[in-house]
């Protein structure tokens, strides 16, 4: 759990225990480590301070200090406290009886509002909702055009009153038009603005007044630092915010700002933006962000992606095969395809704790390599794929030619495959690993 922080804390406690001083002093040293970890994750320093005080109160408890695993105990307290911040919030949108349901997107420049408008429409379409999009950004060059293009890509209708350059009129017109045309959602994109820009904050209020939104979604960049609570707080104070969309979570920012916004501003996080493409929007899960702030990566997202790529049935079949030592090159290829279906490898690695930053690793498991492996297996006959043992020298040559690779590469692949089989056989008993459904439950319980 929480490798980075956990390892650091373990060192702290070990060294202090050695000196027979596992006391409140140890807790203080541990708290300093936690403080640094949180600050490096961009948690607001005021929040960190308050946080550390709470953790101190709980950690000084003798039970924690006397425990055999004080480091884990302390990490658990940190994690619990963080999850506590989020309360029972679940991601996504709260129920709403109004039709059309109007959603207003607001936030600083470049945070991802326009992209999110189209993503949100796409997400809602999957729930059977019909969204009408409208841009009220008459300031940024080509902003209106940007939303049109995105709407087109997403197959969503965009309200485009020709020549209308008044943001308030554009927004109001969209709601009226949605009523006439029977759209049940209106997504209003707004121009990026600074929370200290008086004129534009007044404009935003005017837009809000005319559309009477059910959802006021503050779109925030996950890479934001200490300033996050100032801007989010001001938008909330002046206009009101019902939920946060945290964008650009596909990078390796820890996203501590999100935690601060929730703690200080008191608004829940509704969605996570995880890429530039239209499907890259996911309802928020508190445990994921907490894990990430603490440096353990977004393991759950990864498991979810794997689940989508590998069906339960497929996993079970595979498990069966592994148990009977019947894992063939065909199965191997299926696995490879499943991995590739999960998205770009770099994307996947980015979700693993500590992996995002490892350039070397990312370069080594490059996409092309996987493609070549697949090509090699494709060039085998079905019989060869079922019984790798028959692949002799001349067959290897043919396979190499057929796949545009070299005999060495074919050899290497076969060697790896044999090794993999051995490993799988050894693991036979715990083959549940391949059943992602079970793996997921296990992961969840590990993290609790």
């Amino acid at each position, binding site marked *: 759990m929480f490798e980075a922080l956990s390892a650091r804390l373990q060192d702290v406690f070990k060294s202090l225990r050695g000196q027979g001083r596992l006391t409140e002093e140890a807790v203080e040293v541990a708290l300093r480590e936690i403080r*640094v970890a949180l600050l*490096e994750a961009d948690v607001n320093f005021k929040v960190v301070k308050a946080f550390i005080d709470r953790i101190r109160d709980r950690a000084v408890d003798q039970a924690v200090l006397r425990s055999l695993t004080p480091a884990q105990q302390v990490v658990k307290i940190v994690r619990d406290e963080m999850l506590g911040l989020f309360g029972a919030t679940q991601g996504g949108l709260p129920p709403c009886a109004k039709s059309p349901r109007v959603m207003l997107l607001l936030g600083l420049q470049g945070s991802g509002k326009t992209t999110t408008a189209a993503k949100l429409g796409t997400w809602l379409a999957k729930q059977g909702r019909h969204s009408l999009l409208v841009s009220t950004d008459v300031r940024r060059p080509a902003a209106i055009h940007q939303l049109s293009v995105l709407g087109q890509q997403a197959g969503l209708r965009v309200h485009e009153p020709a020549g209308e350059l008044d943001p308030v009129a554009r927004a109001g017109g969209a709601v009226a038009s949605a009523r006439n045309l029977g759209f049940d959602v209106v997504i209003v994109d707004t121009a990026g603005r*600074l929370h200290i820009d008086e004129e534009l904050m007044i404009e935003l209020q005017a837009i809000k007044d005319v559309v009477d939104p059910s959802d006021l979604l503050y779109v925030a960049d996950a890479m934001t*630092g200490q*300033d996050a609570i100032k*801007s989010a707080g001001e938008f909330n104070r002046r206009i009101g915010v019902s939920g946060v969309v945290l964008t*650009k979570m596909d*990078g*390796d920012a820890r996203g501590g700002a999100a935690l601060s916004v929730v703690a200080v501003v008191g608004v829940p996080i509704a969605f996570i933006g995880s890429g530039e493409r239209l499907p890259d929007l996911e309802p928020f899960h508190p445990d994921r962000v907490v894990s990430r702030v603490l440096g353990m990566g977004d393991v759950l997202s990864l498991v979810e992606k794997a689940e989508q790529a590998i069906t339960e049935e497929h996993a079970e079949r595979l498990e069966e095969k592994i148990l009977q030592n019947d894992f063939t090159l065909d199965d191997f290829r299926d696995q490879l395809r499943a991995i590739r279906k999960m998205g770009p490898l770099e994307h996947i690695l980015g979700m693993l704790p500590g992996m995002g930053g490892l350039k070397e690793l990312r370069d080594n498991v490059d*996409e092309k390599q996987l493609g070549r492996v697949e090509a090699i297996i494709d060039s085998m006959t079905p019989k060869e794929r079922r019984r790798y043992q028959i692949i002799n020298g001349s067959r290897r040559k043919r396979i190499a030619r057929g796949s545009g690779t070299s005999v060495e590469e074919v050899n290497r692949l076969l060697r790896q495959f044999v090794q993999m089989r051995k490993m799988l056989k050894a693991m036979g008993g715990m083959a549940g690993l391949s059943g992602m459904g079970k793996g997921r439950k296990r992961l969840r319980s590990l993290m609790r």
Partner: protein
Amino acid sequence: MTGMGFLGRLRESLTRTKQQLVERLDEVVRRNDEPARRGRPVDIETLDALEEALLSADVGVAATGQIVEAVKGRARGGAGLRQIVKDEIQGILASTASRAPDGQRPRIVLVVGVNGTGKTTTVGKLAKLMRDEGKRPLICAADTFRAAAVEQLEIWAKRAGVDVIRAAPGADPAAVVFDAIASGKAHNRDAVIVDTAGRLHTRVNLMNELEKIRRVAAREIEGAPHEVLLVLDATVGQNGLTQARQFMEVAGVNGIILTKLDGTAKGGIAVAIAHDLKLPIRYAGVGEGIDDLVPFSPVEYVDALFEEKW
């Protein structure tokens, strides 16, 4: 020079909001400055206040620690403390690499960074700045990915009075850069400013695309790209350092442009970047107008951060 503009605008933007921390620092420094305390080492409370001010500006734990240590080592009492802190930060900002000398023409300037930091806007402003200096730049639209990116850039180019070389959506960015350089040479332009698509530094494929653009430029003109400017949003937190490191490694970044300094964020991570990577800040973006880009001056940046407030 444009320095006054920078200072004025920055100070205006910084004083627009309450600088509570700086005010607290102010109070602590004043107390330290009392005659009875002169000549004594700086007290913990002062150092704590300084630490908080730096942390809240996103300078980061490591760089803040170093600055505080340095101040602790040098300061004796409140007198001169303010100056010592300023000197320390200015020193860090000034100890960076200097600008690549003017050489081959056209000068190739690549503008890179993560999504939404202000690259396209800055390209427009930069072109205008060059025009104001009597130069004739050309703009290259190498963001062939984002919706309406080219249209956006074309509007900026028009405002700056500069031509754009563009390609169809989805085209190979390196190919557009090649075309733009050819056109720049043929029309004897002073510079080619390349707007690139926003990309997260964790996306290997997209980062490799920048490497390819570099290669194309280097093949066409000696020493190109002469400047690779990383556009950093002043609101960015500790991830800014990771961004800078990756973009430096893959794209050969040799300067920073700090945008959105007209907000309440101070872009303090740039101090950590200067400290760790010796990357200089070249320009500051202070608004959404075409003239809202000013050459960066370390002295004025620090002055604007602290002046009159403590």
